[in-house]
C-alpha cells in the first residue's frame, strides 16, 4: 500500500500464446471502496483477479506498494499475504466447516485456543454455527459462499477479490451477498468484485470498471456513468476526468 493506503498496479500485460489478454495502464485499489469489474465471458476478468492476488504471473507488471514501485515478481509473496481471492465456486477442503473456516489462521500460525475462539464468533456471524462439524462439501451453494467469505474475512486482508460471486444465484441470495460485502467493508479493506453483468441497484456505491479487449474502462457501456461516478472510476485507472 502506498501512503494513501492505495495499492496500485501499472503497465500490466498478459498474453496467452499469441493472444493478448490484458493490457492495463494503471489500476488502483482504494481501501474502503468496492470496485465492480464487468466484462463478457472470456474477457480476462479471472486472469486479472488472479494476477492481482499473486496467483498467476503476468508478462510484466509494476506494483506500487509502501510508497515504492517494484516488479510483480518481487512482491508476489506480499500480494498473497495481503489479498484473498475467492473462486466463482469456492473450493471447500475435505473437512469440517469449522476446519475450513480456520484454515487460513492455522497455516499462518495462530494458536489453537485463539483460533477456536475466533472461528466460533465467525460461525455465528455467518449463521453456520449449526453446521460447524459437518463436512463443508455437504453445505448448499449459498452456505459455501458464506463460508468462503467468512474464511477470507478472518484473515483481515487488505484486498478481497471475488470472482463472479453471484453468478447463477437468485436475486435474494445476490442481495444477501452484496449486503455482506458492504458489512465487511471498512476503511482498511478494498474489495473487487467481478461479474459479467451489472445491476445498479445491487451496488449503488461501487466504482464501476469494464474490461474489454484486455483494457479497463470506466463503467460498462450500458451503465452510462455520469458526473462524480465517472470521475471516481477514471481516477483508479489514472485517467484525467
Amino acid at each position, binding site marked *: 500500500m502506498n501512503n494513501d493506503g492505495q495499492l496500485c498496479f501499472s503497465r500490466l500485460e498478459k498474453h496467452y500464446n499469441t493472444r493478448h489478454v490484458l493490457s492495463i495502464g494503471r489500476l488502483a485499489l482504494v481501501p474502503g471502496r468496492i470496485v465492480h469489474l464487468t466484462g463478457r465471458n472470456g474477457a480476462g476478468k479471472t486472469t486479472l483477479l488472479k494476477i492481482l492476488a499473486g*496467483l498467476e504471473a503476468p508478462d510484466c507488471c509494476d506494483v506500487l506498494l509502501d510508497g515504492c514501485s517494484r516488479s510483480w515478481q518481487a512482491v508476489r509473496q506480499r500480494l498473497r499475504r495481503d489479498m484473498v481471492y475467492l473462486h466463482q465456486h469456492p473450493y471447500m*477442503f*475435505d473437512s469440517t466447516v469449522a476446519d475450513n473456516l480456520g484454515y487460513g489462521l492455522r497455516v*499462518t500460525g495462530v494458536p489453537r485456543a485463539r483460533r477456536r475462539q475466533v472461528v466460533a464468533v465467525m460461525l455465528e456471524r455467518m449463521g453456520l454455527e449449526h453446521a460447524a462439524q459437518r463436512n463443508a462439501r*455437504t453445505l448448499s451453494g449459498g452456505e459455501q459462499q458464506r463460508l468462503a467469505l467468512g474464511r477470507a474475512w478472518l484473515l483481515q486482508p487488505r484486498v478481497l477479490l471475488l470472482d463472479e460471486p453471484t453468478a447463477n444465484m437468485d436475486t435474494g441470495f445476490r442481495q444477501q451477498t452484496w449486503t455482506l460485502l458492504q458489512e465487511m467493508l471498512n476503511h482498511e479493506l478494498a474489495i473487487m468484485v467481478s461479474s459479467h453483468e451489472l445491476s445498479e441497484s445491487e451496488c449503488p456505491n461501487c466504482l464501476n470498471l469494464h474490461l474489454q479487449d484486455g483494457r479497463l474502462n470506466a463503467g460498462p457501456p450500458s451503465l452510462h456513468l455520469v458526473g462524480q461516478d465517472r470521475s471516481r472510476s477514471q481516477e483508479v485507472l489514472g485517467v484525467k476526468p
Partner: protein
Amino acid sequence: MDSLLQPTQEAFHLLLTGDPDLWTIISISFRVSLKAILCATPFALLLAFLLAYVPFPGRRLLVSVFETLMALPAVVVGLLIYLLLSRSGPLGDLRLLFTQTAMVIGQIVLCFPLLVAMGYAAIRSADRRAWETALTLGAGRPRAMLTLIHEVRLGLLVAVIAGFGRIISEIGTSMMVGGNIAGHTRNIPTAIALETSKGHFAEGIALGIVLVTLAFGLNLILNLLQRREAQAV
C-alpha cells in the same frame, strides 16, 4: 483333489501352530518391504508433486519414463542391482550383496516408478482450486502441498498399496540380490519357489495364504475408506 486338500490342511496347521521357520520368513518379507515402501514413498510423492505442479522442460517425457518403468521386470532390476553390488561392481566395497539392505534397495527401485506415476495421476486429478485456495489463504508452497496431499489422500493411498503389493510379492530382485539365505534373506516369494521345487507344498501353500490374505486385507481397508469418504460428503 487330495494332493491339494492335504497340503492345504497342513498349511493351516503350520500357520496356526506358529511354526518358527514360517513366521521368520513372513517377518523378513514384511520387514524388508515395509522399509522399502517407507523409504520410497516420501521422495516419490514429492517428485510426483513437482511433476504435476512445477513446469520445466522435459516434464512430460519424464512422466512417460516413469509410466514405462512401472512395468520394469523385477529380474532386470535384480540384475542391475546385482551388477552394482557384486564385488567387481562400483558399489562392491559396501559388501551389501545377499543382505536385507540389498533387497530393500532393489524393492525401492521396483516400487519407485509406480509410486511416482500413480501419485502423479492422483495429484493431477486434484481440483486446481485446492492449490490456489491454500495459497491465497496464506499457506506457503510446502504447506499448500501438504493440503493437496490431504485432499487426494485416497488416490495416494491406492498408489502406496499398489506399490507395496508389487514388492511384497516380487521374486526376481529378492532372489538375485538377497540370495534366499534361510533366516536372513529368505522372504515369502523366494521361500514359495524353493519349497515348491523341493516338493514341500504345505509350506508353499501356507505362505501363499499369507500373501492372498494380505491382498484381501489391503483391498478391504481401501474399500472401507472409500465408503467412509463417500458417506462423509
